[in-house]
């Protein structure tokens, strides 16, 4: 489920981080963490809107995810460990490290269950909760990053 939300070309942020000098990378990471948290929350809230139906095998039709499948992904979304590469700090929001869950007596990888619901399969109608949440949360996440960095500037009277 590769969703990339890049905050790019933001001269305003770049200029603010320069003013923070050696505290810039820390402020950037704090902002990114807050932004990623909002993104995760927005995506998580979309999980409640996923339509479900009790599991029913269908040979030629399309079924909805079962309540157990949706239950497996609820609360499983996470923020990946920050990857620092020089001046760049990267992270991702998703189910990559969510592990496994018991679904109808079988251990299933939570990331695969989430992908089946989000992208659909030949036997399950897609409900793109992840893409919808990522799109809806992008602006709020960006605002949170700026707000956190501005707070750091305030603390140091650099605003």
């Amino acid at each position, binding site marked *: *489920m*590769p969703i990339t939300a890049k905050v790019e070309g933001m001269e305003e942020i770049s200029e603010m981080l320069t003013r923070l000098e050696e505290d810039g990378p820390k402020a950037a990471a704090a902002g990114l963490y807050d932004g990623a948290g*909002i993104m995760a929350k*927005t995506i998580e809230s979309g999980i409640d809107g996923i339509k479900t139906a009790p599991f029913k095998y269908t040979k*030629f*039709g*399309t079924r909805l995810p079962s309540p157990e499948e949706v239950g497996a992904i609820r609360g499983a979304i996470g923020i990946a460990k920050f990857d620092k590469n020089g001046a760049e700090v990267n992270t991702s929001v998703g189910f990559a490290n969510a592990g496994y869950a018991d679904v109808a007596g079988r251990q299933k990888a939570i990331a695969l269950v989430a*992908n089946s619901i989000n*992208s*659909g*399969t*030949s*036997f399950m*109608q*897609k409900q*793109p909760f992840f*893409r*919808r949440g990522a*799109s*809806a*949360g*992008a*602006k*709020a996440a960006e*605002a949170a990053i700026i707000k956190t960095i501005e707070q750091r500037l305030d603390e140091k009277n650099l605003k």
Partner: protein
Amino acid sequence: MPSEYEALVAALKLTDIPFAEYAWKNRPEGTYGVVSLDFESGQLEGDGLKQDRSWEASVDVFFSRLSEREDLISTVEEILTEICGDSWELNSSTYENATGLFHVEWTCQVMDGGDA
């Protein structure tokens, strides 16, 4: 419903690939596709912050013979380019072990009558 989305559906339905919107009640045997309008701008609001008006759709194609892959991909991608410009992407390509079908998914996002 956005007119570009309607044009996308119409163009896909003119291809040799049987296409349905959202889901097939009885999916065909062999190759088939599904096209969905996943969301429109009114739904793209988070934490009270208004987002740009846009719509996002996805196109899914399921097939069993790997030899078909290249032709199917170019058919769909030509249509996506015609309707969505360069604002589409190949989102995923998976193999369903349970059914033996390959699944290719594209998404396109279009802003208010123009490219995203």
